[in-house]
């Protein structure tokens, strides 16, 4: 790689067409652009399964990259390719979720904590008593399973809370909204909603159907964060789940390539909860929100201490050697 005068980094991601993942990719590009040692970035970014991600990783190995930063579709499924990569001297960094391959670095949003934090806030908000709606992501996907563990942990701490509806939105806005309409139509009352990132449409469903709002927990997507300050009577909380973790992953990969590996191979980025029920919380939200940003993008576009790009750079979404 040094022969080329810099590092080439490969990126692998398996979900396309979702604001969070798009932000992650843009953060990766922007960070690669500002890293002086990175001269090339190869991005394999498409909708596929673990077998497809294996294919992409193998292709990245063939392309001769120096490091691979990936958002793994599954912690266990990719080991064969990751081990081959490391055997070839390639640095492997998993972002957003972990992998079990020995020697791979993990820079992960703590998904279990993400769910736990939001659920606990919601249950506390209800005074430990009440019925909640639990709207999950895609059944059988690792991230959903991790979040479910966190949610259940919080649920175990609040015996007075009951889940009246549990449903999978498939992480699709339209399905989440439709499902909420169905719940509202049954006339069975409930006291709070926890959703796995499909959030602003849930608020819309309440407003459009004229039902009284209940506390809602979502993610720090630009649209929902804005609602937290603008929708009359909405009590809610956004839990950060920065897509910019991708940028941090690039930064980590470069550090390792430069011989500055961290002591532990696992770094967890812990989520933060922003709620709009206290003045302090509202102030945080006001500071974080960005009404011009694509509403599906998380507003936490950077992670202090990890990423170095500017707002303009991540929005430009250009990597090294482009534009």
């Amino acid at each position, binding site marked *: 790689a040094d022969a080329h005068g810099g590092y080439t980094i490969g990126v692998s991601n398996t979900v*396309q067409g979702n604001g969070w993942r798009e932000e992650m990719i843009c953060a990766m590009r922007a960070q690669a652009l500002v890293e002086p040692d990175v001269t090339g970035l190869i991005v394999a970014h*498409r909708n596929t399964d*673990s077998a497809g991600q294996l294919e992409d990783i193998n*292709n990245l190995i063939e*392309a001769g990259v120096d490091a691979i930063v990936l958002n793994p579709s599954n912690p*266990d499924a990719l080991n*064969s390719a990751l081990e081959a990569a490391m055997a070839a001297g390639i640095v492997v960094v998993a972002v957003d979720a972990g992998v079990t391959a020995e020697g791979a670095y993990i820079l992960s949003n703590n998904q279990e904590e993400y769910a736990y934090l939001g659920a606990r806030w919601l249950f506390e908000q209800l005074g430990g008593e009440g019925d909640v709606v639990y709207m999950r992501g895609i059944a*059988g996907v690792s991230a959903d399973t991790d979040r479910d563990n966190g949610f259940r942990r919080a649920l175990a701490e609040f015996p007075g809370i009951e889940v009246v509806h549990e449903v999978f939105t498939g992480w699709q806005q339209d399905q989440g909204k439709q499902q909420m309409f169905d719940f509202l139509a049954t006339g069975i009352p409930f006291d709070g909603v926890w959703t796995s990132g499909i959030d602003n449409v849930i608020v819309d469903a309440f407003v459009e159907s004229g039902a009284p709002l209940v506390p809602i927990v979502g993610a720090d997507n630009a649209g929902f964060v804005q609602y937290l300050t603008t929708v009359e009577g909405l009590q809610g909380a956004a839990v950060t789940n920065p897509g910019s973790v991708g940028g941090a992953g690039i930064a980590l990969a470069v550090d390792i390539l430069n011989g500055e590996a961290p002591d532990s191979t696992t770094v967890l980025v812990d989520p933060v909860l922003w709620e709009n029920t206290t003045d302090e919380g509202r102030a945080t939200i006001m500071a974080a929100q960005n009404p011009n940003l694509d509403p599906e993008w998380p507003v936490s576009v950077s992670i202090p201490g990890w990423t170095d790009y500017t707002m303009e750079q991540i929005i430009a979404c250009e990597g090294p050697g482009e534009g």
Partner: protein
Amino acid sequence: MSFVRKNAWTLGLIALFFVLLGVTRLIQPSFGVSGLESLARAALPFAFATAAMAVVVIVGGIDLSVASMMAVCSVTAAVLMQTMGGVPAILITLAVGALMGLINGVLIVVTRVPDIVVTLAMLFVWEGTALLILNSPGGAAAPFLREAIVGSVLIDGLPQALIVMAVIVALIWVPLKRSKLGLAIYATGSDENAAFRSGVAVGRTKAAAYAFCGLFSAFGGLSLLALTGIGEPVPGPYLLAAVAAVVLGGVTLGGGIGGLLGPIIAVFILRIIRTILTLAAVDPNVTTIVEGTIMVGVVMFGAFLMMRGRGPT
């Protein structure tokens, strides 16, 4: 001469594949044995999904539940392999696959609901079944299964995954195609009414073709397990890819024409295009555009050739 003409499309695809292989070498001179091996591995689930789809397309049907059946087989095998030996687990999985296919086929014949509706419904049924078997990724693969598709055999550059696939497909397809049943499958796909009048048990033939579809899907599920080492209940992107490869491979939607070789080569072409685009560091969004364009372009080109070949000279 007649052989060339009869197989012109397949031969053209093979030529295209080798051209693309050359392009790959041009972009990445170091692309070699390991590249071929990973290409063959990546093609494995697609190839089986495509073979599965091809059989039912030839009989004049379509099976939208291929990817879901693969998911069921992958989790079934992954769960079984934790408690029993690899070989019995594989055999049970293959039986499960064939049974699922048979259920699809029998439902189509008995209910007289169009095949696209039945298999669309069964897509959900099998997807749900996979989730009921394993509600999150898990299980394990027997080590021999994982090793079966790694490395090369005989000579370097002849990927073991390719050989495994070729042997399985050939062992099932060649005898089938030669048999009365195979003939009946082609006849039914070509003209169901005429086949019935020629003495073919149309219903049984269809059901059998769907059972073979299920069997190939089971191999697809097993290859997913072999690749990843775990069972994943969520169906992968194999349905539309299989349909595309089947059509690219010269099988006519509507039935009666084509074989398995063309579609499987088409799978390799689609896979190597992805490799080339990655190696060339093409913007991933543009990659999608290029893939779509190539798919359409190849078929368009084929139609163009066909028109010229057929037109009066």
